[in-house]
């Protein structure tokens, strides 16, 4: 299991460079092209557990915004947010083999992130307020409803971003321009994409329709229907 290779157990005080796993890279899967991964999270988790680094990267890309946004809500500075992010992912690596319900990963990430944020804040407070009473009360996490909403939003966002990257390039361009803030005038969009102003509206509708039909997004929408038929 080589943390230290060879019998040289004589107290080497100088370090070993990097984690041991770096020495033996997990075998990359040969089946399947290297492309955007739209697998459900449970599939990604089991592939990452089996050594598929690409699946791990996809998980990180998908959920880093969730962890980041929680750090922002706790008003952590950049260094502390980095610290929290790293701890959360390191913990997940340890847990990969133990996760019983991979589909619950976003919830686990959110909970772990909040706990780490709390830790970082109380450590900072301990250092600042020498001898002052520790007040653990001002963590912004009162209602579980906030936490729940945060996770749902992260899953919604991840599905939408993924759907967006699967749109045809023309659609991505158009929708991208329409999302700009401040808004890009239709005349500019027309000039940029070489389409008449009058067709921007219909094209937008067609692109959004494709987005809506993308499986992950369609699943979100159909899950939402029981919440009492959207009157829109």
């Amino acid at each position, binding site marked *: *299991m080589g*943390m*230290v290779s060879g019998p040289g157990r004589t*107290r080497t*005080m*100088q*370090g*070993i460079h*990097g*984690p*041991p*796993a770096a020495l033996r890279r997990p075998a990359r899967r040969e089946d399947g092209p290297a492309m955007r991964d739209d697998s459900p999270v449970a599939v990604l988790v089991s592939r*990452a557990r089996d050594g598929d680094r690409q699946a*791990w*990267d996809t998980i*990180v*890309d998908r959920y*880093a*915004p969730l*962890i*980041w*946004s929680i750090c922002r809500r706790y008003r952590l500075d*950049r260094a502390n*947010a*980095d*610290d929290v992010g790293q*701890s959360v*992912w*390191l*913990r997940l*690596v*340890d847990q*990969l083999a133990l996760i019983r319900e991979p589909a619950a990963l976003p919830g686990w990430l959110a909970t772990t992130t909040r706990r780490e944020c709390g*830790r970082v804040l109380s*450590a900072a407070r*301990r250092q600042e307020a*020498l*001898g*002052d*009473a*520790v007040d*653990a*009360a001002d963590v912004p996490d009162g209602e579980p409803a906030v936490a729940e909403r945060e996770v749902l*939003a*992260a899953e919604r*966002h*991840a599905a*939408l*971003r993924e759907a967006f990257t699967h749109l045809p390039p023309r659609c991505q361009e158009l*929708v991208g321009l*329409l*999302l700009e*803030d401040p808004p890009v005038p239709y005349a500019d969009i027309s000039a940029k994409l070489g389409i008449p102003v009058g067709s921007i509206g219909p094209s937008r509708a067609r692109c*959004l329709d494709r*987005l*809506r039909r993308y499986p992950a997004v*369609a699943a979100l*929408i159909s899950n939402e*229907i029981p919440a009492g038929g*959207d009157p829109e």
Partner: protein
Amino acid sequence: MTSQQWADDRLMAELGEAVRAARAVPPEFTETGKAAYTWRTVDAELAALTFDSAAQAAAVPAVRAEEASPRFLTFAGSEFTIELEIGADSIMGQIVPPEPGHVDACPATGAAATAEIDEIGCFIIVPLPSSPFRLHCHTTAGVSVLTTWITL
């Protein structure tokens, strides 16, 4: 059938939010997460944290925080437990039941440092590793135990 759910404007608004949420994340924040994967195949039993004096202190708001009080941690594996006392500039530890061997203090990034575990299971690590780190204990009997991540 789904076509009228999530009207265009709502869809655009949600998509805009999704894109902004991803753009807000600094690239290095994501890269650090990806790099964590190199720790996947460390082949050792994982000893779980069963006690942390810092967590106790945080849970009891009325307690006065002593400036220089050490932090005590306990990790339990199936073969032995690892007791740690983290001071201002060193870590003193003991494995129970005692067994000699060596321990690697491995920070998440950068070089690990190695210290000996003596006949009564004690070791000392100087200076403090950079946070987060974990300890990897190897006994001469061939047992290898890894603690979960420790953040200072």
